[in-house]
């Protein structure tokens, strides 16, 4: 699980939740809007239904009067059309509504409208024929039918109310006002019809009939009061003008009816009162129609307002949704561009750094401070890595240079060592003396050196030098000491003293140079003797022909320590079969693994024990002994041994 995937999952969940919420809110708001729209249609249908019912009531009252004197002149021939048209409109409107039951009501209304329409045509045809008997017969049948249809429409109206329900108190009020209009209209029309019928009897009207008229008048008054109380319960903005009907009934129609009753009672001015009463009745019908229109306009306006606010809510919600979704997409973009992308970049950069790919990637500018900081740190890491790499490269280069220099130095040293080795003569005979050597330098260049050579008049010179230390400096001093010593020996006359030659060598030795130890020997083969000067060098060992061993010399100052040093010259016998061992301290100062040195005593002991051996064998044993003590490869000092043997 990484940051990118976590962010993606979280944002997806968030986005889905957001979409679900918006969808839920949107669909609820849309349903509300659709409902408001349907409410308008249903209200129109209700109004049409009301129009139809009132029309039927009015037509019923009118048809009832056909043939009576009240309808003198031409009989109307457009009965029922207004109602069937209204029913058809209601039916069509309701079939457009989404609710299946409401559609069914629309269809039911339509089923009532179709035959009624045919019946209206029939009625019109009969009326047009002018056949009075037929008209009367048809009108009686028509009233029955109208009552039936009116009853069905009222039932459907009730059913619609039950199905759709009362959405709010305003619409509830509208509905009740409409119901009361039906009641008022019914009472008014029925009253008018009955009263007109009763007036048919002539000028004289029975007192009980007058009382009946009075009773109906009172009943209308009561209905009107209920209606007025009801109207005052609801918002006047919708039903502002409906109280006008009540005023008219109270102030005009009912007094006119009372006037008619009075005229009938007094049997005076009956026609005039009747005319006033009829006019008031017509006016009341117009008022009812006007109220119906007014209530319808009010309810339509109210519902339109409802629908408008639902639409506004829907629009606001859609707008908000768009804004929210845009914000969400913007957030996604920002998170992607400024967090996820840099993180991915960072991951790749780090992988590159781990892989050692140090070339610069594209330099983006990062917007978030934290990301910038991390990238700066990464940059520092990279710079450090680059620097380290360069350093390593330089070190490697330096190493190569050092190695080269070392190699060159090594070859110089090897060349110098060759020169140094060339100074030392190979084993061999000089006059009647056989020289055998063992030489093991601790380094390429040695501090030890030796030489032997023939001098004039049967004399042979031998020298051995040991410069303290080893390596290049000791090697160079060694060569200088070698040359100086050889010159001293070579310049020695037969009658000259060896010690004087060495004293001179010492006196002239540059005090800036390292001191060295020296053994210088001059053999005289003529008289079988040797002379030796020991300058700080180990005591040479003389092995006589009979195997006896003698350590020669009493020591002496090394060359280069005191310029005015004196040296002792030691005279010794050197006859056929005698051997002289001259060696540097390296031969007995080697340490074994216990840091114990071999010691001069042990070496002399070794020589004594091997006195019977040939020189060749002895040298072989020396090597073996050194090896056994410390290992020739581990020598800390140069080892040199020269054996001079008189033959």
């Amino acid at each position, binding site marked *: 699980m990484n940051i990118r995937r976590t962010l993606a999952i979280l944002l997806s969940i968030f986005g889905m939740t957001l979409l679900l919420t918006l969808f839920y809110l949107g669909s609820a708001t849309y349903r509300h809007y659709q409902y408001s729209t349907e409410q308008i249609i249903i209200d129109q249908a209700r109004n049409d239904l009301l129009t139809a019912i009132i029309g039927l009531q009015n037509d019923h009252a009118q048809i009832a009067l056909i043939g009576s004197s009240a309808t003198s002149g031409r009989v109307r021939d457009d009965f029922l059309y207004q109602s069937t048209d209204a029913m058809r409109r209601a039916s069509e409107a309701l079939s457009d509504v989404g609710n299946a039951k409401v559609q069914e009501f629309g269809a039911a209304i339509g089923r009532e409208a179709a035959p009624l329409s045919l019946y209206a045509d029939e009625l019109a045809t009969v009326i047009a024929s002018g056949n009075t008997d037929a008209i009367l017969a048809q009108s009686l049948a028509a009233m029955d039918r109208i009552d039936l249809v009116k009853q069905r429409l009222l039932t459907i109206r009730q059913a619609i109310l039950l199905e759709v329900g009362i959405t709010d108190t305003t619409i509830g009020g509208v509905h009740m006002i409409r119901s009361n209009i039906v009641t008022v209209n019914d009472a008014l029309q029925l009253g008018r019809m009955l009263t007109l019928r009763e007036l048919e009897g002539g000028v004289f009207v029975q007192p009980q009939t007058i009382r009946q008229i009075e009773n109906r008048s009172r009943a209308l008054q009561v209905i009107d009061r209920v209606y007025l109380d009801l109207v005052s319960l609801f918002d006047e903005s919708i039903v502002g003008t409906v109280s006008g009907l009540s005023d008219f009934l109270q102030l005009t129609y009912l007094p006119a009816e009372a006037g008619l009753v009075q005229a009938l009672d007094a049997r005076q001015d009956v026609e005039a009162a009747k005319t006033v009463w009829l006019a008031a009745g017509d006016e009341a019908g117009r008022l009812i129609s006007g109220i119906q229109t007014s209530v319808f306009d009010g309810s339509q306006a109210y519902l339109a307002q409802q629908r408008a606010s639902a639409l506004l809510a829907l629009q606001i919600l859609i707008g908000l949704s768009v804004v929210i979704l845009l914000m969400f997409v913007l957030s996604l973009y920002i998170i992607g561009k400024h967090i996820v992308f840099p993180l991915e970049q960072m991951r790749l950069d780090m992988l590159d750094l781990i892989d050692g790919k140090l070339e610069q990637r594209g330099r983006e500018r990062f917007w978030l401070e934290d990301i910038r900081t991390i990238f700066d740190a990464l940059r520092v890491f990279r710079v450090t890595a680059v620097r380290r790499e360069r350093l390593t490269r330089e070190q490697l280069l330096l190493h190569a240079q050092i190695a080269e220099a070392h190699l060159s130095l090594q070859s110089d040293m090897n060349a110098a060592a060759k020169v140094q080795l060339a100074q030392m003569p190979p084993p061999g005979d000089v006059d009647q003396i056989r020289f055998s050597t063992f030489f093991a330098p601790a380094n390429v260049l040695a501090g030890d050196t030796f030489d032997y050579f023939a001098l004039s008049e049967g004399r042979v010179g031998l020298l051995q030098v*040991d410069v*303290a*230390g080893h390596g290049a400096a000791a090697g160079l001093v060694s060569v200088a000491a070698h040359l100086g010593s050889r010159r001293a020996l070579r310049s020695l006359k037969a009658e000259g003293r060896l010690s004087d030659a060495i004293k001179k060598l010492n006196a002239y030795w540059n*005090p800036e140079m*390292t*001191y060295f*130890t020296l053994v210088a020997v001059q053999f005289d083969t003529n008289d079988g003797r040797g002379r030796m000067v020991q300058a*700080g*060098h*180990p*005591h040479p060992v003389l092995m006589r022909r009979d195997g006896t061993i003698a350590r020669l010399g009493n*020591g*002496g*100052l*090394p060359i280069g*320590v*005191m310029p005015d*040093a004196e040296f002792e010259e030691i005279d010794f016998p050197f006859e056929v079969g005698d051997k002289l061992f001259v060696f540097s*301290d390296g031969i007995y*100062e080697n340490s074994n693994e216990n*840091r114990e*040195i071999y*010691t*001069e005593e042990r070496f002399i002991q070794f020589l004594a024990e091997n006195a019977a051996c040939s020189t060749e064998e002895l040298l072989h044993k020396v090597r073996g002994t050194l090896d056994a003590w410390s290992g020739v490869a581990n020598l*800390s*000092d140069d080892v040199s041994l020269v054996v001079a043997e008189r033959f």
Partner: protein
Amino acid sequence: MKFSQERRGTVLLLEIGEARLEAVNAPELRELLIGRIENGDHQIVLDLKLVNFMDSSALGALIGAIKKMGPLGTLALAGATGPVLQLLKLTRMDKVFPLYTSAAAALTKLEE
């Protein structure tokens, strides 16, 4: 290189704490002695009683020091035994350095 030092009046007593004086520590010995001499110590006793081996490089350091000291100062060697004494005798260092059997003997002599 291990050593201890003690000042007795004008005499500086240096006791070497190493068993071996050889090529590996000869430069340090040289540095020690030259340093003291350059600091103005002209009477130095070097106690070698703990040293049981000395090679020519260490001897070179001693010779370097005595050359630095010059004719007016004293660099005395004390307590040399065994191979060390052998080397000193072989190279006749008694002609170069005053040799004493012990540091006490050297101090007594020098404080006179």
